[in-house]
Structure formats: structure tokens, C-alpha cells
């Protein structure tokens, strides 16, 4: 599968989805003007990946900040991952960012995927 590599910007996150090297990561800030449009390629990539998935996938979400429109799309990403066996979400939050930790916990209550919480 082709690698999906999106460079981060001040209002959009860095995204790497690389099946061969087992790297799946969303990091940075997410407050795009059009969140549905921004996350569309991510959702499409994951739907294709689902058909040829690796036995396990550690999906890293390491966001410093996301807006509410992105939170809906993050839930869409998680819902897509829900159907892929062997998926674990590694939810990172800055050690003094309780709100981001809580946000991860709320997402974990909304989908049936195992979450590991980590600090950076």
C-alpha cells in the first residue's frame, strides 16, 4: 500500500500511515477550516487498509490540540479502526495536560478498541 504522508501545519496535524513499516500516527494540532475535507484521505486510506490489514496495529494519536469539528472526525477515524482486528490506540497527552487525557478517555468510552494512555 502507498504511504499516506501529510506534513503538519499550524492548523493541521502531521499524519503518517505506513503499512509496511507499521507506522500509524496523527500528531500536532488539528483545527482545519474544513475538517471533513482534511480527514477524508485518512478515512479512505484506512478503509483500503482494512482489507489487507497487518495482524496488529498500534495507532498513535499524539495531539496537542484539536477543535470540536476535528473531534467528530477523530471519532470517525476511531470508528473505522474499530472494525480492524488487532488495533490498539496509543493516546498520548502532555504530562500536565489533563484535558487531553480526559478527551482520550471519553473517546475510549465511545468505541470498542483498546486504548493505552501515555505521556510525553
Amino acid at each position, binding site marked *: 500500500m502507498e504511504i499516506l504522508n501529510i506534513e503538519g501545519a499550524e492548523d493541521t496535524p502531521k499524519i503518517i500511515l505506513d503499512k509496511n513499516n507499521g507506522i500509524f500516527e496523527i500528531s500536532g494540532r488539528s483545527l482545519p477550516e474544513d475538517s471533513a475535507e482534511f480527514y477524508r484521505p485518512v478515512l479512505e486510506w484506512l478503509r483500503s487498509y482494512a482489507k489487507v490489514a497487518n495482524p496488529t496495529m498500534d495507532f498513535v494519536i499524539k495531539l496537542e490540540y484539536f477543535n470540536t*469539528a476535528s473531534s467528530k472526525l477523530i471519532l470517525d477515524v476511531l470508528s473505522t479502526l474499530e472494525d480492524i482486528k488487532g488495533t490498539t490506540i496509543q493516546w498520548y497527552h502532555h504530562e500536565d*495536560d489533563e484535558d487531553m487525557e480526559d478527551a482520550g478517555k471519553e473517546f475510549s468510552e*465511545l468505541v470498542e478498541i483498546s486504548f493505552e494512555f501515555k505521556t510525553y
Partner: protein
Amino acid sequence: MKFIYDLHQSMKTNNVVLVYEGDFTQTTTKSILSMAERNLESSGEESGIKKRIFNVMVEALQNIVKHSDEIQEGENKHHAAIFLIGNEQCRYSIMSGNPIRNENIPTLRKSLEKINGLDKEGLKELYKEIIKNTTISEKGGAGLGFVDMARKSGEKLEWSFVDVDSEFSFFCLKVNISRTKE
């Protein structure tokens, strides 16, 4: 030219540290955010509070970009809105004002009243209920902005509709963020 001095005095009296008036786009949103972020960075404010201020600013600014109704003046359409940050001794305030068509007021009022009627747990439940069921609107919103602002604030949202004319009102919003930890 006295209005310049008056405006300056009025900002000082009302503890306003930043005002932006004019057209709001994603580009202006980014500029205002980075400016406010630099100011907060140099203020030495606690990082949790900085994050909350940033959070509420993003939602308030993107609300204006996405939802402010356009006023037609002659040939010109414009989003004549205003965004302010207040810095008082014990709290920050994120304030915004934008035109709203009178027919859109009842829906907004109802949603704000509902949010202000909820406690912390109630807001969390409402957030989860909306995020599960919402789809991104044509305007690009998830319908979560005010709930999120109320959660980050921890206080009630302050709001009012000021009459402009038979077609429009001006929607004023104030979101407080306490400087002391809960």
C-alpha cells in the same frame, strides 16, 4: 481623533487586552491565535489555563467564521464581527459579537439555555450524545462548539442579543476562564 483615546481608555477600564474587528476568516483566526499565544507565553500563565484559553478562542473564532450572518449594506456583504480578550485579576474572558438574523435567534437561545442548565457531568453527557449522532454540517461545524466552551470554562456562558433592526440582532458572548484552579 478623541475616539482613539476614548477607545483606549474604555479598553483599560474594561480590562480588554486584545480587540479584533472586521472580517473573519481562517487566516485571521490563525493570526489572532498566534498573537494571543505569544502574549500568553510571555505572561507565564499556567499551561492548563493557556490551553483552555486557546481552546475557547478557537471555537469562538471559528463560530464567527462559520456561523456569523452576513449583513448586506448596499452592494457589500460583510461579516461585521468583533472578538475580544479580557484579562482581569482572577479570570480571562473570551468575548465575541456577531450579527445574527432574527429568525435564527430562537434555536440558538434554546441551545445556550440548555447548556447553561447543565452541570459538569450533564455537559459531558451532552457532548458525547452530540458527537455520536452529529454529522459535519455544510458550514463545517459539528454542533459542539458551545458545549465545549462551557466545559472548558467551568462557568456559565454569558450571552445576550442586542437589537439592531427588523432583520438583524447582534449576538454577544462572553466565556470566562478562571485563573485559579478548580
